[in-house]
């Protein structure tokens, strides 16, 4: 197998394995719009990374983390609705990204690659970013699993039961920011949220516990990566969108399976 394909597979699998469990919490906590905001923000990171000549992934990660912190601070204030905060942050960052790109002399190829993803052009350095960040986020998720689940079910009940709600919430936002930035190259900023949401949504029907759903989401994500890359080679389809479409097909196919843990009363 060609080396670029092996790298593409490793990158895709790395993203899917982390995006599955993290995506479950994004779905459970109704944070899809936050994921989208992070994707927009990541593009500002890309633009700054390219223009300033620093690494694109670390730049995206820093900008995303900063935006996540801003969202957390504004959200804790409770005076502005969360979706308004996310709208302002997401589109403010995107607009700024476009201005930065224009000021630097027009849309460059690198920026396009991060907008649409270019999994077949993943470098060894990209792979290291994906796997190191992925491992860190998975470890964090394992440690925080119980408190995170508790505050997902009922945040005030969790607070009364001595879960450090504010801290856990911020750490999770940062984890989403890191996953988003690290997986930019695989599916691109436009489609990145799909890797968080679609495998998790598809996994719901197959799962009767939160843990099973996380594992299924990771597994379905990996299947989508293999299927998408195969389709990309066989039919010369763009790889990122092919992966997302494969995930969508898995989601649709999931409806054939009987839903677990939902007996009618």
């Amino acid at each position, binding site marked *: 197998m060609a080396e670029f394909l092996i790298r593409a597979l490793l990158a895709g699998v790395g993203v899917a394995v982390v995006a599955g469990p993290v995506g479950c919490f994004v779905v*459970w906590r*109704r944070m899809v719009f936050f994921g989208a905001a992070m994707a927009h923000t990541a593009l500002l990171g890309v633009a700054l990374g390219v223009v300033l000549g620093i690494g694109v992934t670390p730049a995206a990660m820093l900008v995303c983390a900063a935006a996540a912190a801003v969202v957390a601070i504004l959200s804790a204030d409770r005076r502005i609705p969360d979706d308004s905060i996310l709208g302002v942050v997401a589109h403010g960052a995107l607009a700024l990204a476009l201005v930065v790109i224009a000021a630097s002399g027009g849309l460059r190829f690198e920026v396009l690659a991060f907008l649409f993803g270019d999994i077949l052009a993943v470098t060894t350095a990209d792979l290291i970013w994906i796997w190191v960040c992925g491992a860190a986020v998975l470890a964090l998720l394992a440690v925080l699993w119980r408190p995170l689940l508790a505050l997902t*079910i009922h945040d*005030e009940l969790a607070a*009364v039961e001595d879960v450090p709600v504010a801290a856990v919430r911020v750490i999770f936002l940062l984890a989403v920011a890191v996953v988003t930035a690290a997986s930019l190259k695989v599916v691109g900023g436009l489609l990145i949220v799909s890797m968080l949401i679609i495998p998790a*949504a598809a996994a*719901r029907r197959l799962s009767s516990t*939160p843990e099973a759903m996380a594992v299924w989401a990771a597994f379905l994500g990996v299947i989508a990566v293999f299927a998408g890359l195969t389709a990309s080679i066989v039919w010369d389809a763009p790889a990122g969108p092919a992966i997302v479409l494969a995930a969508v097909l898995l989601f649709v196919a999931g409806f054939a399976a009987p839903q677990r843990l939902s007996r009618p009363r």
Partner: protein
Amino acid sequence: MSAEARLGGIGQTLVAARGVTVVRDGKRVLDQVDLAIGPGERLTIIGPNGAGKTTLLRVLLGLVRPSSGTAIRRPGLRIGYLPQEFPLDPALPLTVDRFLALGTRAAGERRQQSLVEVGAAGLAGRALDRLSGGELRRVLLARALLREPDLLVLDEPVQGVDLSGQLDLYRLIGRIADELRCGVVMVSHDLHFVMAATDRVVCLNRHVCCEGQPESVRDHPEVRALLGVSAPDLAVYTHDHDHVHGLSGRIVPPEDDTRPSHGPHG
């Protein structure tokens, strides 16, 4: 006993509010509220809609920071909390048993036993988001039981439960409080049932308008005016506190059913 007098024995107090004022959007939601709950004491907060009852509970729980004044909780206090709202998401696959396991470290056998105690024996494998209002309250009570709290905090615990189920739930809460020997703070609209299972009633309308034994509060003109109740209406339901304590500690299945219209039995 006044709140101040109770605060005198501070070592014993479970939770207390001292001069708590909460201002939200320029409006005083709570105004200089003093309140204290001692071990094993059962306190019910009544008051009209918008009186700040839930806000006061949330201040006591540490979920809302008062604009002025303080909320004090005994260090290491274990609280069992039944929130008023419990939105459940079908996207999260969670069984009742798993939910119980998440709040405590109780063994499976103990969890099943707690469900039996609250009359929800068959629910262990059910999806949490598929429970009825009454079933969910029972499960939340089972979870509170497992945590062996010093204080049970209940916000409108029978909301969304049909009338006959409401009485069963109030009885269950009384039995659990007996068994755990814990303090109880409850918010309720419902004077009728409150009379049966409470030591002290606080009538709240942003400030504490009166407090005392259920009988004395019931007869307070301000309470009647606020809640729009008439004396005969209240008199139907006598204070059957003795009934609740008569079962001390022993858990009786919820089928034990004496309607209030029959009057309290020994």
